[in-house]
């Protein structure tokens, strides 16, 4: 243990010591350049002595660095390049020391060539080192926008499931695993299994590692995984052991997941979400748990052509666009006698029409056949028209209709039977029709669709 502590102590001196060789190399190169420009000649011994100092300090830096790396807080993948380029640098300094003390002679302008080369290697090593200590984006994080756009490597891109339906989001694979991948999997994967734990699948998590099952179904408090990520950070068993702990929200999400019924391919739609869960899912993944209106689910609708839309004015239809960025229209007939030609004209915008109002306009059963072709129709208001049960049969093919206003028409109980088969219907207006009150009461008791009557 003492040995471990001492090696850790020296290991942590690495970030301090590394700056010595860096300083020596830079002062040496600047000095050489300065002497050359000003044509000052000094003893070569001084110059080669500085290279010697650089060599000695770089050996210490590499040694301490090795100790630091061997303490196991780093994934080999991340430090591989830094480790070996650092060692290469030591040998390179040794080589240059040889050059400068005139022990080696290769070609004429070797001095400037190797000075240039060592700066390149130094940049690589120190950049890799900085990345390990501070993270990749440390320097660029607050850089001006135009630099950021080009160079900033946004590793922390927020995962967004904004446009995904709840039934297509897999809980483990799409919500939990990304957190593990970011913070745990570098040490607990198929190749490396520290503590014999593999965190890549639900089954392997249940199996656990040397300390037992990592997770326990419906019990976050007893799950070792949850225990480890919530220990005090200075505890030896705290996970993850490097300086990148899970955030409060990530811990809460894992807690929520562990307390649910964990199955490997559970979807978000299969679990009941409390208010705080919804808030959390929205915050972390921009998941919209609210039920979306029909028009938000529509995709690939053709764009509206304003010139063509203006033609609707000629057949007495006024049109309104639902909202910005929605190629959907609501139509209102303003004449008083509807004809097939007018309806055929609106059918040219079939998929764009989500609401249609034709009231008091002598709309007949035969017209409904045309209207029933509107595949995205949500709202249909055909009040006060001579429509009978025969016409309502056509409406059965409106698969997305939610609101249907039939007040003041001549329909009877039969129509209600037909309408009860349209699953998408939410509200039906049947004031002043021949549908009996008993029938409506019966319907309202047995259906989620609501029939609204009047006085």
């Amino acid at each position, binding site marked *: 243990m003492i040995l471990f502590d001492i090696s850790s102590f020296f290991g942590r001196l690495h970030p301090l010591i590394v700056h010595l060789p860096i300083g020596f190399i830079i002062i040496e190169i600047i000095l050489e350049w300065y002497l050359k420009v000003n044509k000052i000649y000094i003893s070569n011994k001084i110059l080669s002595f500085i290279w010697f100092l650089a060599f000695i300090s770089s050996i210490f830096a590499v040694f301490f660095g090795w100790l630091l790396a061997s303490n196991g807080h780093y994934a080999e993948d991340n430090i591989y390049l830094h480790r070996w380029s650092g060692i290469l640098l030591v040998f390179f300094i040794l080589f240059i020391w040889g050059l400068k003390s005139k022990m080696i002679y290769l070609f004429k302008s070797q001095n400037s060539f190797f000075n240039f080369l060592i700066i390149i290697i130094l940049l690589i090593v120190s950049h890799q080192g900085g990345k390990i200590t501070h993270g990749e984006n440390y320097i660029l994080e607050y850089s001006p*926008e135009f630099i950021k756009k080009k160079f900033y490597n946004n590793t922390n891109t927020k995962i967004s499931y904004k446009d995904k339906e709840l039934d297509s989001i897999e809980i483990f694979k799409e919500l939990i695993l990304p957190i593990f991948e970011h913070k745990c999997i570098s040490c607990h994967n198929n190749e490396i299994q520290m503590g014999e734990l593999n965190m890549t699948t639900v089954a392997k998590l249940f199996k656990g590692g040397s300390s037992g099952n990592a997770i326990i179904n419906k019990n976050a408090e007893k799950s070792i995984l949850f225990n480890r990520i919530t220990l005090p950070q200075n505890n030896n068993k705290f996970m993850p052991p490097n300086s990148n702990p899970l955030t409060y929200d990530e811990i809460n999400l894992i807690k929520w997941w562990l307390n649910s019924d964990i199955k490997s391919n559970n979807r978000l739609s299969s679990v009941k979400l409390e208010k705080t869960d919804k808030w959390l899912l929205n915050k972390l993944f921009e998941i919209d748990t609210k039920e979306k209106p029909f028009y938000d689910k529509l995709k690939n609708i053709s764009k509206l052509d304003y010139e063509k839309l203006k033609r609707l004015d000629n057949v007495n239809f006024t049109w*309104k666009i*639902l*909202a910005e960025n929605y190629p959907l229209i609501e139509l209102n007939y303003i004449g008083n006698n509807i004809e097939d030609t007018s309806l055929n004209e609106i059918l040219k915008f079939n998929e764009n029409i989500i609401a249609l109002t034709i009231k008091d306009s002598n709309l007949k059963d035969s017209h409904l056949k045309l209207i029933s072709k509107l595949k995205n129709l949500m709202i249909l*208001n055909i009040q006060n028209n001579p429509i009978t049960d025969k016409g309502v049969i056509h409406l059965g093919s409106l698969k997305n209709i939610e609101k249907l*206003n039939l007040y003041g028409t001549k329909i009877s109980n039969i129509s209600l039977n037909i309408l009860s088969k349209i699953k998408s219907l939410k509200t039906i*207006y049947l*004031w002043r029709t021949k549908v009996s009150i008993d029938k409506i009461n019966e319907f309202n008791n047995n259906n989620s669709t609501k029939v*609204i009557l009047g*006085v």
Partner: protein
Amino acid sequence: MNCNNHKHNYKFSRRDFLTKTSLGMGALTLGSLISPTDLYAKNTYIDKRIPHFPAKVKRVIYLLQSGAPSQLDLFDYKPLLNKLNGTELPDSIRGGQRLTGMSSGQSSFPLAGSVFKFKKHGKSGAWMSELMPYTSKIVDDLCFIKSMYTEAINHDPAVTFLQTGSELPGRPSIGSWISYGLGSDNKNLPEFVVLVTKDKFGQPLYSRLWGNGFLPSKHQGVQFRSGKNPVLYLDNPPGVTADLRKEQLEYLKKLEKINHSDVGDPEILSRMSQYEMAFRMQSSVPEVMDVSKEPDYIYDLYGKESRNPGTFAANCLLARKLIEKDVKFVQLYHQGWDQHNDLPNAIKVQCKDTDQPTAGLITDLKQRGLLEDTLVIWGGEFGRGSYSQGTLTKDNYGRDHHPKCFTIFMTGAGIKKGITLGSTDDFGYNIKERPVHIHDFQATIMHLLGIDHERLTFKHQGRRYRLTDVHGNVVKEILS
């Protein structure tokens, strides 16, 4: 001495140009460095009159109860006031609140419990007083906000604030903003129609309350009156036929076109469209004002006063007809709620005027399916206080203005039904939870209509104005 006296002659001298533009370029560069995407202002003008987002509400009926109805006698049940009736209003509750000059001189402020009986109604269990038997029957369709508050303490600034978002006159009314933001659905009728109950007295109503302010004048509210001439100066004078008027307008249009190409004043276009609108209204207004074809059961629904043109009941019926014709914003005004004394008797009259018509209107809209996309609002400009103004007797008292809390109710599209938002303390004096400011209320109406209240602006006198000024948060809790 100021050496720059020449400045009024040369508003922008060579020197000014160089100093100002170089500074400006510097600022531009800095701005683009900090955040290049925000350098260019977003286009806030609405060209095609498309809502910002899908709207639940297409039309609004605003039943404005001018004079401020007493929430303590209608909706906000406070048994503690009855218990402590006659005792002094505690200073801890009043908290140094400013009072109007009408009661600030009183030596005592005795708490006055309502003389009216309260009962819970409907499945939602909303408290309603016996004053509103008809509205009590439809409480499950209503959404009450019991925690409204305003800044003004007197009628005119308060009602101006409620209507225009500013206590000072001169800004556009809500209806004008909506007309400007959403345009028209019926080219034969104005987007914004105003109906004022006849023969009522109380706090004065000025046409600036439904004025367009700095917006183009075609967005102003048009008042429809009862009687022979619903819209003043609309009919042709005797001897002028419709054809003659049409011809006259066509020539006028030609002249105005030349004028506009010369001067470029947008108000000329506005006026041209109004002349044409007025011509179309000559036939559309009589049609919509004709209630003779309404069946008896509809009159029964709105109450017998609905047969008497110009009453609140008749105006409610008209409001429905206007909404059926796709008028965007119908605003009713009903005066007489300013009950500083003799409240128990005066409020009975007011409720008799408004209770049945309001409930009737909502029921009628519902059965026709209009409540699916119409918003109905009932409320005054502020509330009334919990202490008695003047002498408190066993069955009589008055109430002074109270801006710190009041109740309104809404129903219709996009609103949760059968809920109550916010509450007041046991004295009915301060808001206990969820305060809703006038600007929040305005922002919510705009939101329901599909307008982002922060984006609907109009540039006037060098700055962009909005209805909610720099305030307003949408009251999300009441949205369905």
